[in-house]
């Protein structure tokens, strides 16, 4: 049993017993954290934002709709990737629990965006089509889809070095690039709204999504680092390693191109393209360093200073804004 690696082929009879001495304690920890973070969209009073929504100007509304449209389909995309992609090759029970906790949370998120869709009476077809019509948004998703489709249904052998590299790549694309870069870009748009006092209850929900996603990001980082620790020969392939780094940097490029189309020569909710550019690079450097790479852009400070409000303890005026400080556990 203990000879099993982090990824590999197992029978359904394997590893159905938990032990108090888990092989990967960090995933037990991550499971507990995710459990504590569970929330439900009904806890937020989203209908309070209806008037706000109607008062958004066309650029603001476009930004909001695009962010919702992007999340609405991406949440379930993440779930698909986990379910069809690398969940089948995980071996350890606590690791599986941690990733299924993530899958459950993605339900909550897509449920949350669904409620937003209904509450503001948004055009469902149009919202879901946003990721098809906007070429750059589509490419952001396609990047992940292409890589994951290459490994599903046994196409990648988790016991071979090549298979391991493919699986690692799709974890990277999903949990680091999608959840840790693309999502973080859209988070900033939402937080900028609250900063100017708009869509506050929706954004309270996004604050909860952020907590969840930062845990998912950790799932991904831990998985990648563990796979490398167990299979150091992966990094013998210098080209592969360089490729991973390039993938992250290309993703930043892609995101910046997208942001340019939205923020180009203007500011929305008081935020400009230049600030977002620095912000994305700052976040990308974090991801690079978390995986053991040197930083690329070397931005010393997060330029979106209003985000420091997310870093400190929070007190809510209960009668005014949905609180996100209660725990279900």
């Amino acid at each position: 049993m203990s000879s099993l690696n982090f990824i590999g082929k197992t029978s359904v009879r394997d590893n159905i017993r938990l032990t108090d001495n888990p092989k990967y304690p960090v995933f037990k920890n991550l499971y507990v954290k995710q459990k504590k973070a569970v929330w439900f969209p009904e806890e937020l009073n989203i209908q309070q934002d209806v008037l706000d929504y109607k008062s958004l100007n066309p650029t603001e509304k476009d930004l909001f709709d695009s962010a919702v449209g992007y999340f609405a389909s991406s949440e379930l995309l993440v779930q698909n990737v986990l379910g069809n992609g690398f969940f089948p090759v995980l071996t350890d029970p606590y690791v599986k629990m941690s990733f299924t906790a993530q899958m459950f949370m993605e339900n909550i998120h897509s449920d949350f965006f669904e409620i937003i869709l209904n509450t503001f009476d948004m055009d469902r077809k149009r919202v879901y089509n946003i990721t098809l019509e906007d070429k750059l948004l589509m490419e952001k998703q396609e990047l992940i889809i292409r890589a994951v489709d290459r490994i599903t249904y046994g196409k990648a052998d988790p016991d071979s070095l090549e298979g391991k590299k493919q699986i690692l790549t799709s974890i990277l694309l999903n949990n680091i690039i999608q959840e840790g870069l693309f999502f973080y870009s859209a988070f900033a748009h939402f937080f900028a709204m609250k900063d100017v006092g708009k869509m506050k209850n929706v954004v309270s929900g996004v604050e909860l999504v952020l907590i969840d996603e930062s845990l998912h990001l950790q799932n991904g980082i831990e998985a990648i680092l563990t796979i490398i620790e167990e299979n150091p020969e992966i990094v013998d392939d210098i080209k592969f390693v360089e490729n991973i780094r390039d993938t992250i940097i290309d993703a930043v490029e892609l995101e910046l191109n997208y942001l340019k189309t939205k923020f180009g020569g203007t500011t929305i909710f008081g935020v400009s393209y230049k600030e977002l550019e620095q912000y994305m690079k700052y976040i990308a450097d974090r991801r690079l360093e978390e995986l053991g790479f040197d930083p690329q852009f070397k931005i010393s400070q997060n330029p979106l200073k209003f985000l420091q409000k997310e870093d400190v303890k929070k007190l809510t005026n209960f009668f005014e804004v949905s609180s996100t400080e209660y725990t279900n556990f």
Partner: protein
Amino acid sequence: MQRIVVKRDGTEEKFQMKKLINAIFALLDGLDIPDDYEIVFKVAKELDLKIPQRVTTEELDYLVLKAIEQLIPKHLIYDTLASRQLLKIINRRIDRRFGSFKDYIEYGVRQNLLKEELLNFDIDYLEQNIDYSRDSLIDYFGLTTLKDRYLTKDREFEIIEKPQWFFMRVAMGIGNNEEEILKIYNKISNLEYLHSTPTLYNSGTTTNQYSSCYVNVIDDSLESIMDKAKETAFLAKYAGGVGTDVTRIRATGSKIHSLNAKSSGIIPFIKIFDTIVNAIQQGGRRRSSQVMYLQPWHLDIDAFLDLRETTGNPYFRTPSLNTAVWMPDEIMRRIKEGEPLYLFDPAECPELVTSHGEEFTKHYFECIEKAETGQLKMWKKIDSQEFFNRYLFKLAKTGHPWLTFKDRHNEHNPCPEYSVINSSNLCTEISIPNSPESTAVCTLASVNLARHINEDKTDIDWDKLKDTIETMVLALDNILDKNFYPSEESRKNTMDLRPLGIGLMGFAEALVDLGIPYDSDAAVDMAEKIAKFMRDTAYKKSQKLAEERGAFLHYEEMKKAGKPYPYPPRRNAVLLAIAPTASISIIAGTTSSIDSYFSNIYSRDTLSGKFIVINKKLMEELDKKGLWNEEIAEKIKSQGGSIQYIQELEGNINKSLYKTAYEIHPYRQIKIAAAFQKYIDQAVSKSLYIEEDLRNKMFDIYMYAWEEGLKSTYYCFIDKTVKGEKYMQKVNKRGSRRGFGLLKERVKASQSENNQEYELKEIEEKAREKYGDEIVEKVKSGNIEACPTDPLLSKICPSCE
């Protein structure tokens, strides 16, 4: 790339940083600041990133504001600058429309926004007494809150009121003559006290509604339920919060004789109110505005505890309502001593509803006796401790129901002949006798204690405090006769009892000024001293008012009926209530109510958005001592706003003055509330802050609150442990693992191997030059006794020679 500024008239000009920098310098006018260049440079640097290619002048003003706002956590000066910039933005637009305060008042009356009676005052005289320099007392968070929610807007939602005009408008809606108006204006514009939010919104306007709270009672009949639904709808419409007692409504399964059917219990009826409140909330300025009170012996208590759950059948959930338990002593005693709890149907045991204290206990025992001897149709016996723990779990999880103590409220009822006190209100600070025919109303105002410290900061300025409280009694009593009452029941209660609610904010800030740690016995003593002073002063003033204006009606009626109350005549049945002051403490820029500082740096979510709040007292002290810098600021932030474990501050400041809410034991929080409660004739609304580690001690904590004699508790905040990734501070998630860095290390390692080889060759060559080939060959072949550290170089290595 040349950026373009689009001016108000549509013309365009090249963007010039110089112009902008001059404008920022102008904000510093009159401030004594040594490093003004550095400050302006910092703001300009923030701005440079923000300004897009095309920008309007208005947008530019706003971006300057945002740039300054971002720097607020760095130094107090940025807060001042941000307020000045915001004020500039507000005033500039108003100055385009109105030449004077008088212009504004006349416009407001013409537009039917303001009361016509305002024109009867000598407006020119009042205008001469407006002091615009007081704008500087309002900090950025306060000014933003004023701007978004309090300053009057015209029909196009454009602000038409400057902050000082706002204070004067509020005063004009309260004072009966110019002298009273100026007295009130001077007090509130100096932030020495503030009226509650509805008064600040509506005073002097055509929405003549000044009151914060209403407390009504629903009887056990469909007629009463629908009557109260209508009353609630009207009360909620005018931005009042409503407390409602539902204990009389019969339990699920209880017989309805007129229909020969069984009742569906209280939950479906409560749901009606949830729907009403939700409908009225749409577009409102405040969220939830009703709380339902139930006594815990009611058979439907279990479903009641679940009302704020977020999952389950939505028909049994009330997301827009608040809930509270009205807890009798006898039941707390049973919980404490582990005796069983009996649940009853109020239709069968109506005597339990209004009785309290020993009388309730007597009836409760009788009901138990009846139940056990088969004389009751419906009852249930449950484990009281298990019940209480379940209740506490719901409180921690959903924030509801709050815990309030029926007998504590009732034993201090000044008018027991009028009625019992059936419940408290939306914020749990009200304690006024009421009944289905008489809806309690309370109009609130709160002293800002932080503005009542003497000059050398050794004590409270008691004379000033006396003056403030006397002004408040007068102002609040005035309001009762000007107020619009949405229902006959609410008018009746006010006219009979004339209740006032004078409260307090800035207690924690005042303590810091006086050098008293919140977490100390001295703070408890101070709390008691202040509360006693407030009571004595307010009562004396009310007695004096009774001489001029007459005592409250019910007092006189009892006297006439030959059953006089054993206290001297006063104008108001009750006078004091400590409200949470969530919003007005922001305007006043101080700590809320009697709470400690929440944290030394934290963010606050309000209707105006999210704000970062810093303990200004701490920042000031550190700055004065030269200890404030970005490193310290970051450290405080990374410690969740705590300074208790920051080494650098050790011995430099009194750290205990700056403990945050979760660092103060709940017992101490309760002690302070209890000290106030001793003299506050209504109630003290007290939220408790409980650190995650103490969560399993909640039973003891709430038991202690009861034993210490609190009338009310409010929200229970539990420090949330799972947080998102930090945005500003880097966190090392990788630890010592190398990840893809492994490759990098290998490359380096092989490089250094090469280096080593190269170095060896070099040394060998040097050695050959120095010692000759022979020796070197001998060494290399190992024929010479080898050096223990390096066999190859034994004879050559300087340390071995």
